[in-house]
């Protein structure tokens, strides 16, 4: 495109690179999702168009920034897909595969460009280009000469037939103007546009007064489509319209031909009246273009894309319609500040509770409102960090497709509960364990098609990914309808590994053996799994997130692995207990019960360890004061309270002075300014402004058991 040189030399594009990479990444993701979703036989126009648009948008951006390798590949993708879209060529699975491979390559290339590296695997790119071109050969040998791709610009310019070497006048309309896109913002864009040609403002006096739109005309040698592409990187393309100048400007007649529906000044109709225009636009726009000699009808397509409100309504475009990009730090800062607000509010409430409710009725009412508002703000700000599980699930169609192909199995992936929300930090960390579990299910869980048929099942295996809320937690399940876990095989393997197992173990105990390091019962180590590394890592990762894993399995019916995670890392439902002068928080989820022991309920073993008998179960007892090296108020067990805790499969009785109450606390790291303290997992700030430490229950349980082992 002729604009790219100007772009490089004159404006400072480097700042915009980040934006391009972000956008290109989104387009690639969208494209991949669409490709995976598409049904080769019944693909509808909207899907095809969306894929084309994604490739096209990346190409436009890449060209603007002079990333020729990316432009080259996307151009080939675009050219090929254009044929498909126009039904000049059938969509095939092979084509989808090549497209997916190209998408991966683009990701690699963008990654390399982003990090400033230059290691673009040119040979592979060239190979992909050849593969893409191969699809075109039978359909359009003559129409698509194998042009050297660096010249991407050529067809684009050629597609604007009425603008031979000379200049043309284009009209730019910036609308609607509002707080999100101000008059000043337009000025900024216009200044940059001066690189493309002579810009004159043509906003009428009346329009100026309304201050809802601004109009400019630009005398340029760049085509409308190219100019649109360039502007897309300076302003929201939805708010900028590029078109041939209206008749009085004596624009070349042919130029306006491709867009008859918009020739009149109906700019606002485009944005306001979404119902009528999109219907006729996509039809009418390509129509005049069809006889055009250029095989790549870029200009009209771009115009359609830029203007069509259908884009916003289309599923592909929906994701970026009403969101803004904010750094996580800003959100975290907001959440921290809200945490402060909550504490301040609690302090005020505490102070005011001493004031006479009759005399200070207004104050009390005000504080009650404040409390409600603070709680709402807290919830709302927490929800910013929450993302739907679909973010994590979206990559699995690809994982399943690729892995299944590699293993030669027929698999269908079913996902439910994509809308279930989870903290962003957790989502990022759950993806790897989930991928591992899914691959495991594919490899070990599901049988080959023939075996399935022999067992009276359908040829196609099913993998189900499910997310749902359960209490204050989210449960994510990976289930397959495969052969199920073999109890004898696992036990035999465990014995072979020298693990202490017995044949009397319960099923769930046997299943949990597969999480032990180095455990794999797969007979053949495949590319996909079976090396015995991983399942232990999966469990460790999930435990690090404060979650736990459960396995349910039945022979020939399948296996279901359930991961239970807290909703967010930032907030904890806790019970505060007191020892001496200090309050400690224990996560509510770890508490089984609390009781005041009867004299004699606690007995000692060898005079060192102590155990509590609860309904026939003997639990090791430890005193929190002693573990933390503090002085407790209550020296005798029957004076204080015993809290029974459960973590990592073990139970422990913990002796404390007193239960204080239940709180929702904001978790703060102790390690930010201090170091890790054994037995303490974090800190929080209580209503009175004091710091309370959060107990690491897993540590307490392990400590209690190791002491008991020593004593016994």
């Amino acid at each position, binding site marked *: 495109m002729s604009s790219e040189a100007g772009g490089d030399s004159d404006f400072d594009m480097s700042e915009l690179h980040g934006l391009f990479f972000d956008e290109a990444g989104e387009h690639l993701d969208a494209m991949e999702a669409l490709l995976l979703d598409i049904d080769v036989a019944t693909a509808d126009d909207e899907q095809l168009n969306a894929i084309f648009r994604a490739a096209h948008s990346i190409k436009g951006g890449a060209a603007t920034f002079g990333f020729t390798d990316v432009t080259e590949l996307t151009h080939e993708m675009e050219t090929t897909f254009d044929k498909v879209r126009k039904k000049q060529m059938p969509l095939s699975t092979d084509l989808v595969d090549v497209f997916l491979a190209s998408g991966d390559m683009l990701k690699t290339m963008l990654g390399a460009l982003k990090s400033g590296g230059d290691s673009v695997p040119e040979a592979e790119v060239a190979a992909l280009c050849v593969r893409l071109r191969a699809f075109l050969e039978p359909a359009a040998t003559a129409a698509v000469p194998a042009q050297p791709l660096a010249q991407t610009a050529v067809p684009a310019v050629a597609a604007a037939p009425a603008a031979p070497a000379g200049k043309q006048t284009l009209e730019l309309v910036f609308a609607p103007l509002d707080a999100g896109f101000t008059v000043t913002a337009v000025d900024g864009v216009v200044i940059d546009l001066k690189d493309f040609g002579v810009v004159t403002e043509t906003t009428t006096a009346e329009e100026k007064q309304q201050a809802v739109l601004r109009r400019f005309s630009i005398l340029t040698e760049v085509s409308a489509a190219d100019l649109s592409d360039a502007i897309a990187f300076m302003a929201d393309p939805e708010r900028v319209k590029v078109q041939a100048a209206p008749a009085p400007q004596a624009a070349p007649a042919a130029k306006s031909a491709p867009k008859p529906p918009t020739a009149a000044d109906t700019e606002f109709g485009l944005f306001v009246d979404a119902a009528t225009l999109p219907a006729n636009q996509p039809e009418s726009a390509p129509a005049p273009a069809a006889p055009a000699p250029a095989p790549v009808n870029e200009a009209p397509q771009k115009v359609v894309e830029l203007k069509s409100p259908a884009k916003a309504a289309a599923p592909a475009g929906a994701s970026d319609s009403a969101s803004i990009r904010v750094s996580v730090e800003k959100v975290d800062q907001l959440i921290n500040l809200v945490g402060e607000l909550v504490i301040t509010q609690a302090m005020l409430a505490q102070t005011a509770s001493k004031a006479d409710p009759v005399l200070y009725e207004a104050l009390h009412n005000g504080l009650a409102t404040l409390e409600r508002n603070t709680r709402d703000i807290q919830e709302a700000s927490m929800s910013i960090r929450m993302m739907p599980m679909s973010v994590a699930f979206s990559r699995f169609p690809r994982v399943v497709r690729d892995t299944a192909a590699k293993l030669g199995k027929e698999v269908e992936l079913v996902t439910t509960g994509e809308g279930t929300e989870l903290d962003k930090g957790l989502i990022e960390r759950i993806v790897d364990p989930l991928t591992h579990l899914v691959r495991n299910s594919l490899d070990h869980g599901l049988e080959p098609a023939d075996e399935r048929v022999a067992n009276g099942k359908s040829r196609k295996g099913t993998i189900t990914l499910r997310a749902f809320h359960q209490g204050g937690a989210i449960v994510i399940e990976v289930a397959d309808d495969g052969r199920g876990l073999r109890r004898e095989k696992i036990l035999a393997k465990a014995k072979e590994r020298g693990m202490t197992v017995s044949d009397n173990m319960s099923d769930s105990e046997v299943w949990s053996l597969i999480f032990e390091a180095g455990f794999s019962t797969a007979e053949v180590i495949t590319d996909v799994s079976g090396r015995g590394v991983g399942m232990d890592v999966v469990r460790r990762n999930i435990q690090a997130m404060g979650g736990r894993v459960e396995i349910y399995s039945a022979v020939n019916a399948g296996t279901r692995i359930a991961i239970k995670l807290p909703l967010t890392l930032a907030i904890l439902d806790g019970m505060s207990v007191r020892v001496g002068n200090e309050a400690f928080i224990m996560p509510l989820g770890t508490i089984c019960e609390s009781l005041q022991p009867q004299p004699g309920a606690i007995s000692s073993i060898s005079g060192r360890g102590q155990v509590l008998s609860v309904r026939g179960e003997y639990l090791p007892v430890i005193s929190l004061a002693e573990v933390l090296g503090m002085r407790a108020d209550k020296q005798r067990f029957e004076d204080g309270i015993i809290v029974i805790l459960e973590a990592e499969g073990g139970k422990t009785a913990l002796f404390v002075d007193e239960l204080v109450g239940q709180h929702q606390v904001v978790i703060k790291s102790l390690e*930010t*300014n201090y170091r890790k303290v*054994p037995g303490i997992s974090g800190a929080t700030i209580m209503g009175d402004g004091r*710091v309370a430490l959060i107990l690491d229950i897993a540590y307490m349980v392990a400590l209690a058991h190791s002491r008991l082992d020593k004593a016994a």
Partner: protein
Amino acid sequence: MLQTTTQKTAASHIAGAGEANEFLTFRLGAEEYGIEILKVQEIRGWEQPTTIANAPEFIKGVINLRGTIVPIVDMRIKFGLGDAQYNTLTVVIILNIAKRVVGIVVDAVSDVITLDAQQIRPAPDFSASFDTQYITGLGTVDERMLILMNIEKLMTSADMALVDGDTVQ
């Protein structure tokens, strides 16, 4: 040998601080110390911190500083200077070092003074109340001697038990 190293550290450290070397001075027992003012975030009164399990005696615990959990070190206990009493006059200097926030308890904060290079002498090799490697030099102001310490190096040392082993500089 050790002395030369110390001198070099002193010189480079002070040179690194730029032309205007401003120091916050405070008292620990009878001795007066100075730390680079740029490391000081704020000065607050004493408030009872939340004690931390199994921490050394000089780590008094953590406080809530506007939402940040800040550990508090009593320098008087750490260096055995002065008697560690806590009352309304006890001062906590909140430091911002190595991207961490730490509070230190001292007997009193005296002044902010400016010292130029001529006023700073290298520290002699005999022991002060703590290891000379944390002393960058001695300053003289109005006949008073000021011990200038590299507070960042001190607070991040394994000695202070404030940071995990792997992050010790």
